[in-house]
């Protein structure tokens, strides 16, 4: 597996470069925007002197590239922060301190990440089953009544906002039928069973939205594969329809699904804000929106980098899956 190790190494270097580029862009976008960060952080009632002091404390007076240099230094070697009276050591990889709470950004992310990952992992399983299943069925039953019903349902799925689906689910399942308690996040390490029960509705709501895209993609790529010559070969040799569709067509149709899934998983880690908010899940997305609102820039930069990391990771995994699924692919 020499080629594979090489691939992983090249990918890791590529990911590092990508993340560095993201950090530069995020830095420029957020720190160079007009608006007085010190004023916002300090609060509306601060006197100009207090604002000035806060700005000094947050090193806001330094030029942008100097601050970026500090940021990189913290990332690689860790850093000490003086918060007025005491000194806080932030060990590498240090993403800085929150302007709002003086908490280390890394700790903040560590606290939120399990929630977001739990949500995305479960939802992904559901949206793949729902989406790919619907796609295969509607490609197979193309033009028939059952296909139209399925297409209608998936279209309705994409068209309905997550807060509508989620609310309806909650009202019906938890309110009327009392099948489940209203969701409340329980950590996987605390109680796996409760973890799953409480996340069931969030998973479903997120999956229903995403499944529609997978259904349409799977259907289109199945239809394309079904029109290929090798499918004709197997039909001309009397191979049954179930085997033709399930073995030969589905395998060929899978590559675009892998690619789409990588992107969706990556972006859902930080992008499932609506679902998180609706179900009161303290995840990355919710925290990021909050941080943007209060201009807590270290938190924003840190979270964007973490989200970027997951997008890059998901795509690298997709590339490996590609190569496993199709031997013609050479990993470079």
């Amino acid at each position: 597996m020499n080629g594979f190790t090489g691939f992983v190494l090249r990918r890791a270097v590529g990911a590092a470069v990508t993340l560095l580029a993201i950090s530069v862009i995020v830095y420029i976008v957020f720190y160079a925007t007009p608006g007085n960060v010190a004023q916002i952080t300090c609060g509306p009632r601060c006197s100009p002197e207090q604002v000035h002091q806060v700005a000094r404390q947050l090193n806001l007076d330094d030029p942008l590239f100097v601050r970026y240099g500090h940021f990189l230094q913290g990332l690689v070697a860790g850093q000490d922060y003086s918060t007025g009276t005491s000194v806080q050591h932030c060990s590498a990889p240090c993403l800085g301190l929150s302007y709002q709470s003086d908490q280390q950004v890394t700790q903040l992310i560590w606290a939120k990440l399990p929630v977001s990952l739990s949500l995305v992992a479960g939802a992904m399983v559901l949206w793949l089953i729902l989406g790919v299943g619907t796609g295969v069925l509607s490609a197979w039953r193309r033009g028939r009544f059952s296909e139209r019903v399925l297409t209608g349902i998936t279209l309705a799925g994409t068209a309905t906002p997550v807060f509508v689906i989620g609310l309806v689910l909650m009202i019906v399942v938890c309110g009327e039928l009392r099948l489940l308690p209203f969701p409340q996040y329980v950590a996987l390490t605390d109680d796996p069973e409760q973890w799953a029960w409480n996340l069931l509705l969030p998973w479903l709501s997120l999956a229903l939205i995403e499944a529609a895209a997978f259904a349409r993609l799977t259907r289109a790529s199945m239809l394309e594969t079904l029109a290929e010559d090798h499918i004709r070969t197997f039909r001309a040799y009397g191979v049954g329809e179930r085997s033709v569709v399930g073995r030969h067509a589905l395998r060929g149709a899978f590559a675009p699904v892998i690619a789409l899934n990588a992107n969706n998983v990556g972006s859902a880690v930080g992008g499932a804000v609506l679902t998180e908010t609706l179900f009161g899940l303290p995840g990355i997305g919710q925290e990021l929106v909050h941080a943007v609102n209060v201009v807590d820039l270290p938190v924003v930069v840190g979270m964007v980098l973490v989200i970027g990391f997951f997008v890059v990771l998901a795509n690298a995994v997709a590339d490996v899956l590609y190569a496993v699924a199709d031997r013609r692919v050479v990993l470079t």
Partner: protein
Amino acid sequence: MSLVDVTGLRVDFGALRAVDGLSFRLEEGAALALVGESGSGKSTVASALLGLHRGTGARVEGSIEVAGTDVQRASEEELRRLRGGPAAMVFQDPLSSLDPYYAIGDQIAEVYRVHARVSRRAARTRAVEVLDRVGIPDAARRSRSRPHEFSGGMRQRALIAMALSCEPRLLIADEPTTALDVTVQAQVLDLLHTLREETGMGLLLVTHDVGVAAESVDEVLVMRHGKAVEHGPVAGVLGAPAQPYTRELLAAVPRLDAPRKTSTAPEEVVLEAAGLRREFGRGKRAFTAVDDVSLTLRRGETLGIVGESGSGKTTLGRMLVGLLEPTAGTLTFEGRAHTGVNPAVQMVFQDPVSSLNPRRSVGESIADPLRARGERQEGRIRERVGELLERVGLEAAHYDRYPHEFSGGQRQRVGIARALAAGPRVIVCDEPVSALDVTTQAHVVGLLGELQRELGLALVFVAHDLAVVRQVSDRVAVMRRGRVVEEGPVEEVYESPRDPYTRQLLAAVPALDPEAAARRRAQRRELAAA
């Protein structure tokens, strides 16, 4: 009872009647070829024999009986038993006809298990057996390869192996050699011949190539516009055709033994290549496509470049035009160093479909070279393009039409007009007729000859078809693995080839006369044994 009995077959795709009242029979162990140009309905007939039009929206009428099954009335289950069992089909384009994701042996085993109640392991053993039978070396190991790891010829053999796995009584082969090089084509046709001798199966061969038919069958049915034009024993139909269309078709087929014009080219050299070399890739993956090729092209002459796929002929052609930079070597055009593109050296491409922009009118495409040379006046451009269109046998009014409104041959004429627009003195034609039907081919070749005489053009004619090259060229260069193995006047190279590879190539060309075909087959065996 006959193996195949078709009466009054009619196939409609919507308003289009693809097959119109066709009847024929094929006895056990006999071989019949359906010959026709594209759109004649021959492949539609082949698919109808296995009931493959079911569920596609095509309307099939008439009666079809194959190996005792009434295909029109059979249930899905009966059809599935027929397909791949008593009647098996081999398709064109073996790369796309096999599933790219599974090992070839597994695919054959899967098909075998549809028809024989055996274990997975036994089916796998059978797959290796048939792969070995069709001449795949080291079949047990190669059966684990995926299709992309096989060469074109090996993939075609693998498809034939799949067909053989259930010992069919009828083999339907739809253009089984069209995508292959001549030497590989000859091997596949010889294989089909041997298999037929050994197993006594019947063969229905669908082909556009009269030569391929002459090599392989006892009877020929010539089709045109969905109807049978002529039907009879191969020697009769091809030797003494009764119908005008058959005669036209045969006359258009380029032959190795046809009389040809004698060259009267002046000695003045227009284009000279010395030590041309081209590599692709770097380091360990470097690949030399063209290696130390030196050629001269004289004013008004045609230089043919023949070779099989991968021989480097297209790369050489592109370097001559300046579309590719040589890695080493020099090009001289009319006494001066020739680098980059030059309006005086133009190119006509192989695929008339993809070499024209489908979203622009043909007039616009032809006008490109004029605009590139700085012509800005719309009126003059239209006038000149109109002249060019007429010059290549189209109409000036075709300016505003789009490529899809033209047939393949007409599109190739547009491609030639575009090349002429720049006012070239040399045109490099890369497989200009290989995508065309033989009758169209003859017209386009005729047009090129006319233009050459009138405009004093020097042509480089790159092609894999030895007979076409012989017909148009004054001199010919034979390429193999990036090198020119033999070069000289056409008569010399074709009548007394010096290089063994040239001899092998010439022996592989299908002959129109069945007796000559048998002689060449024997000759091939000798060459292979030697």
